[in-house]
């Protein structure tokens, strides 16, 4: 029952998106993600999708890889659109079958609301696929720099974020190993009543917690041994530097968002 979270998995390639300054990239991705909430018309939707597909092409990440990383969220969106389809009552009635009533407004909501969110999901996935966790941390660090100036642990928060990305796959592997072990000992993870299954989760969580603590201990030893002392004295192998292409990316994104709003 091996499962893997595809979140935060960098895909090494040489593309414009990979080379952008992570700060610019995060800003653009956030702008695109927020802008989808302005989408209300088919023209806007088409425009948003065209932009998203252009980005996928620019990223040089294989389409299959992008699809794999958005699959879980798309599945959730499908459920959401089904709810929209069944619950929204507006416009003309297209079908009335006992308790089920489907209206034109419902169909519209089901299609547009999910499709526009897919654009946001693609933007987020591309950000994670084209940016290494270290770069993300650096961008996060830069965003939190005002906090550090106020004496709050901005840099440390960014480091925690980066370690979280690093340990998600490790802990996921361990969780599946623990689940296997419990299954082999007759634990009722995949069968039995809901209460039985819920009870079977407890041993997994305890074992996983114990293992997280072990990792935390080891990690603190490793950070000390490698002279990690917080933000102050650290240098960067690839210091962040906004270049022409980064400003252009920001300008293009701003133009895109403006266009999207105007189209509406």
């Amino acid at each position, binding site marked *: 029952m091996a499962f893997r979270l595809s979140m935060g998995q960098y895909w090494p390639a040489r593309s414009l998106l990979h080379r952008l300054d992570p700060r610019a990239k995060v800003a653009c991705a956030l702008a695109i993600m927020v802008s989808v909430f302005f989408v209300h018309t088919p023209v806007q939707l088409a425009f948003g999708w065209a932009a998203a597909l252009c980005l996928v092409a620019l990223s040089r990440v294989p389409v299959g890889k992008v699809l794999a990383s958005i699959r879980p969220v798309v599945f959730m969106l499908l459920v959401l659109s089904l709810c929209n389809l069944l619950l929204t009552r507006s416009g003309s009635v297209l079908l009335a079958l006992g308790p089920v009533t489907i209206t034109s407004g419902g169909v519209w909501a089901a299609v547009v609301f999910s499709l526009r969110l897919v654009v946001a999901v693609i933007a987020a996935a591309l950000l994670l696929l084209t940016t290494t966790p270290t770069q993300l941390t650096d961008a996060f660090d830069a965003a939190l720099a005002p906090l550090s100036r106020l004496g709050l642990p901005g840099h440390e928060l960014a480091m925690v974020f980066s370690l979280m990305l690093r340990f998600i796959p*490790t802990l996921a592997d361990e969780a599946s190993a623990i689940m296997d072990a419990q299954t082999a000992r007759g634990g009722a993870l995949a069968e039995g009543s809901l209460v039985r299954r819920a009870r079977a989760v407890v041993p997994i969580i305890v*074992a996983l917690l114990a293992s997280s603590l072990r990792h935390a201990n080891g990690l603190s030893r490793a950070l000390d*041994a490698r*002279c990690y002392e917080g933000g102050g004295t650290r240098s960067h192998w690839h210091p962040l530097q906004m270049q022409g292409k980064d400003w252009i990316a920001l300008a293009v994104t701003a133009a895109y968002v403006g266009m999207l709003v105007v189209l509406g």
Partner: protein
Amino acid sequence: MPHEATVTTVGRHDGQPIVSLSHVTLRYGDEAHEVVALDDVTLAVQPGERICVLGANGSGKSTLASVVCGLLAPDEGTVSLLGEDVLGPHGVDFEAYRRARRGIGLVFQNPDDQIVTSIVEEDVAFGPENLGLPSDEIGRRVSRQLRRVAMEQYAQHDPSRLSGGQKQRVAIAGALAMEPQVLVLDEPGALLDVRGRRGIRRVMAELHEAGTTVMHITHFMEEALDADRVIVLDHGRIVLEGSPQDVFAHGDELSALGLEMPFAAQLATTLRSRGIDVAWTCDKDTLMRELSGRGQGTIAPRMGTEVERDIPSTGQAVSCDHVAYSYQDDTGRRALDDVSFAIDEGTSVAIVGQTGSGKSTLVRLLCALEVPDLGRIVVSGIDTHARRDRRRLHGHVGYVMQHPERQLFAETVLEDVAYGPRNMGLSAEQVRERCAHALGLVGLVGKEDASPFQLSGGQQRLCAIAGILAMEPDILVLDEPLAGLDPRGRRQLSLILDDIHDHGVTIIRVTHSMHDAARAQQVIVLSQAHLLMQGAPREVFSASHEALLHDAGLGLPEPMQWALALGLAEAPLTMEELVEALVLREEAPHGI
């Protein structure tokens, strides 16, 4: 920012120790449960020296490593690291500690805990970044150190997708990129296979060549032979110290401390006790030379010496019929391809093969945690394809995963062991009986109410195994049961497994050790997802298979390698057999 961490040869000429501990004592815990981790330890390490630290679990080895790395300040004594007096009579000098730490690297057991980013090269850069080095210097160091550990083609990879040995090499590169004058390795090979350990040993030898001071802590006696000086710890005290030859001459003391001698030393000792007058040594080449120099006598190979233990063939415990299995990931690689074999009830079986050969997958299939894509697996008469029967199967097959102690969860040992039997729906009385029996088998009687997390490492593993034994399986499947244990733990668990086997349980174990495989009744060799060989150890480990085994990343058991090198007619699987063969040769008339 000063760059003290650049490599210098300061101090190498004037005999000034690079690390010096004097009467160091370090205690853990509170007044009531005080543990003395280091007890009046005095140690001076010269620049460029290669030191190996041995000791059973809990002897204070890791604490010593932390003190030498400047990560722990002892309670008493004085410590000087790289010429900085970090701990003197006036207490701890934190600034001196900070400066000293910049020149000392540490690599420890679990590579997963030492890698802090998700890209190999960025992880190597992490240390130099912390030192505040300029960007171009970091780039130079990253590529130099990745090349040194032969990982340059993995620079862009995600460490979590690498093998354990590769991860550990990345961790070493990360430590080396800080260009430490002293590198401390705390059981770097404990979680690795033979090949992974060999890679690390090679890197250590190169570092020593290059003049880095190396301190290596290990459970593998053979690795201590490479050191200039061996230190043996027991209960926080240095009990033996000297060259490998000096230290391993104290065989009885070592075994009392839960350690053992390297193979060559054991052989030399046994031969001398059998009246063969060889000079005692722990060096393989020396002993080999001496042995090949004497005993020119040739004797006809003795026939019929095979001591095949009778296998009561009552039925098949496992049968695999043209089994294939692929992973569900992007690669779609075959993990097993057309594997067929059968295992008789009550047999002890070893599955060998290098990392990635499909061993662990095979084990998961046998335990019905996965179902083969093609072919059929029948375990205890139950086809693993039948979903309804799988639950019943879990009562027949006990599965001990790698590092089973990581799955402990309950508040007490008894509760943890009772988890399986309770899931089987047994009565409270039966559960109690089975737990008592299982705890008796592994020798944990009296620990029922202790928290499993308070047990020692070896005991935790025994507790986890007891949890499987309490389900009274007919077939016990173990994935690397001895990995990461100290010699005493390895010996103890081997005896327990023999005992369980004597009770009629079929034992299937995955192992990296040819020594363990030679002691099984059947050996299954996997190579690149295929079944390479199956047979009795004597059939599998034969001189004619040497090349085949080598290509599969394996080898012959050590006694057999000796016999081949010495031109013996016999093919001894154990040291006892090798000694017999040598004694026989000695007695044979010379010069025929």
